[in-house]
């Protein structure tokens, strides 16, 4: 993963780009390697989750009697778990739940957070302060613990996980959007919109907000791996996805008691899956930054 910062400003460069309006983008922009690799991994997972169970011929909950805790072999490429279920099929299937949880929570958080941030940047100061105060309270809790408490209070399920993780992620979007809106507001084009007599809501939504979206997209790319980690962590503790559904964190938990007796595969493969997915997201994020930087 690329460690150097690529700082991306939101306003267009200040130099004029030539006197004629006929300037076109003549060079085809190259797609960065990181984007390709990251994208391929994601694509691979999509294919895996759809086709592997079909190809193997078993599903995630299927218990084959007499096949408990079998080491990886030709029959069971990833081995079986304590209930005799195929670890490969379960790992492949679990992708669906984790990706749904990740996308669901992050996108909800982004939508709600951006709207809240736009609101905060547009309303009178006292309302802004109250809103930010509430968000500060949410951010005061360590994320895992807050998500844990919420999941426990509402009853652990995929829906609750999405909700709990979204709540944890919302404050950053709201803060970033608010800051961006406040900074865009002072720019002449925002004033021009006001001078034109546009309704303030229109100004914010149509003029200001789109210029803040780049930061939001970057944040989304950063939050997707975080969401997966929290979901897996919560499921590991027993407060996320419930058995018998296949989920990586849950599978790691199910296999944890057998580590000390040497049955490593139940825990190993789901964790490896998480690792590959998180790396894919990181690569995508770096790739997106590079790609839009080139434009």
């Amino acid at each position, binding site marked *: 993963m690329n460690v150097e910062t690529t700082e991306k400003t939101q306003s267009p460069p*200040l130099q004029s780009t*030539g006197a004629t*309006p006929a300037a076109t983008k003549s060079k085809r922009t190259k797609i960065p390697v990181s984007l390709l690799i990251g994208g391929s991994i994601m694509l691979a997972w999509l294919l895996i989750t759809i086709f592997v169970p079909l190809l193997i011929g078993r599903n995630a909950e299927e218990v084959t009697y007499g096949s408990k805790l079998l080491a990886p072999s030709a029959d069971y490429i990833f081995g079986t778990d304590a209930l005799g279920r195929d670890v490969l099929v379960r790992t492949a299937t679990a992708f669906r739940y984790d990706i749904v949880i990740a996308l669901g929570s992050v996108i909800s958080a982004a939508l709600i957070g951006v709207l809240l941030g736009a609101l905060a940047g547009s309303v009178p100061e006292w309302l802004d302060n109250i809103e930010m105060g509430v968000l500060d309270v949410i951010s005061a809790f360590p994320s895992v613990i807050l998500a844990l408490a919420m999941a426990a209070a509402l009853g652990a399920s995929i829906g609750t996980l999405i909700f709990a993780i979204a709540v944890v992620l919302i404050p950053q979007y709201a803060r970033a959007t608010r800051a961006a809106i406040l900074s865009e507001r002072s720019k002449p084009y925002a004033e021009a919109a006001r001078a034109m*007599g546009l309704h303030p809501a229109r100004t914010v939504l149509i003029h200001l907000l789109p210029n803040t979206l780049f930061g939001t997209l970057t944040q989304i790319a950063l939050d997707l791996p975080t969401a997966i980690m929290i979901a897996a962590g919560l499921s590991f503790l027993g407060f996320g996805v419930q058995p018998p559904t296949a989920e990586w964190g849950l599978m790691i938990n199910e296999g944890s008691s057998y580590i000390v007796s040497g049955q490593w595969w139940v825990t190993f493969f789901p964790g490896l899956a998480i690792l590959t997915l998180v790396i894919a997201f990181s690569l995508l994020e770096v790739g997106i930054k590079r790609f839009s930087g080139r434009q």
Partner: protein
Amino acid sequence: MTITAESVKPGIPEAGKPLIEARDLVKRFRAGGSFGHGHDVIAVKNVSLAVYPGEAFGLVGESGSGKTTLGRLLLRLEEPTSGQILYDDKDITHLRGSELRQLRSAIQIVFQDPYQALNPWMTIRQAISEPLKLFRGLKGAELDRELANLLEMVGLPVSSQKRLPREFSGGQRQRICLARALALKPSLLVLDEPTSALDVSVQAQIINLLRELQRELNLTYVFISHDLAVVGQVCDRVGIMRYGELLEITTRDQFITNPANAYSRTLRDAVPEVGKLLPLMQAQEEA
């Protein structure tokens, strides 16, 4: 010097009634500090003036003289701390909400920085048709015609509409801003240092355009600038501001030949092209 109808350019109809008037305007800003320890900045101190229809009124002064703030007050982009603003004899000082928005189509502004005055993600077409659609209710072929008309008026090819602001130079962007401002068919145009961010050669083009447009559309200008040479080319009367106060109002000719106020004199003397302006004035009179 008192402001009378005779001091205005002759030949303008209704020269007697001001289009926009400021009476004893004050604008105070609270700057810095927490918990009420901040100090006030009085940007505009008891300014009174009147701008008559069809004229180009210049507001000159150094940075910080309050001229920009005054311009913004006239536009009601800011609300005065005290005093009155009258537009067409109506008190607009405390207008709000939809009434204020209605006023907007009468008074428009062109900003100083053409690079930031256009929304980076909107095409020229989108930027200019927005007011056309929303406030003049145009659509379809009528919209296209008017859009083309506006672009032509400011000297831009009609094909520019599909492009984004970043594809244009500073001078071109300023033309686009003009087109956008004119889309609402305003009577009064406030121009806040419209040429200060542009190259000298481009400045001349824009100034000529402004003068042409004023003639064609019978616009009234409030032209804010610290550049006296530019003001001399466009304006009929000038108001000189310093530290928030309006020191004097005089005609352009008076200002160049014999300003009453000592500060005005120093301003005028500081301009190297004053000498060039005299022949210009004479050429205009002969024209």
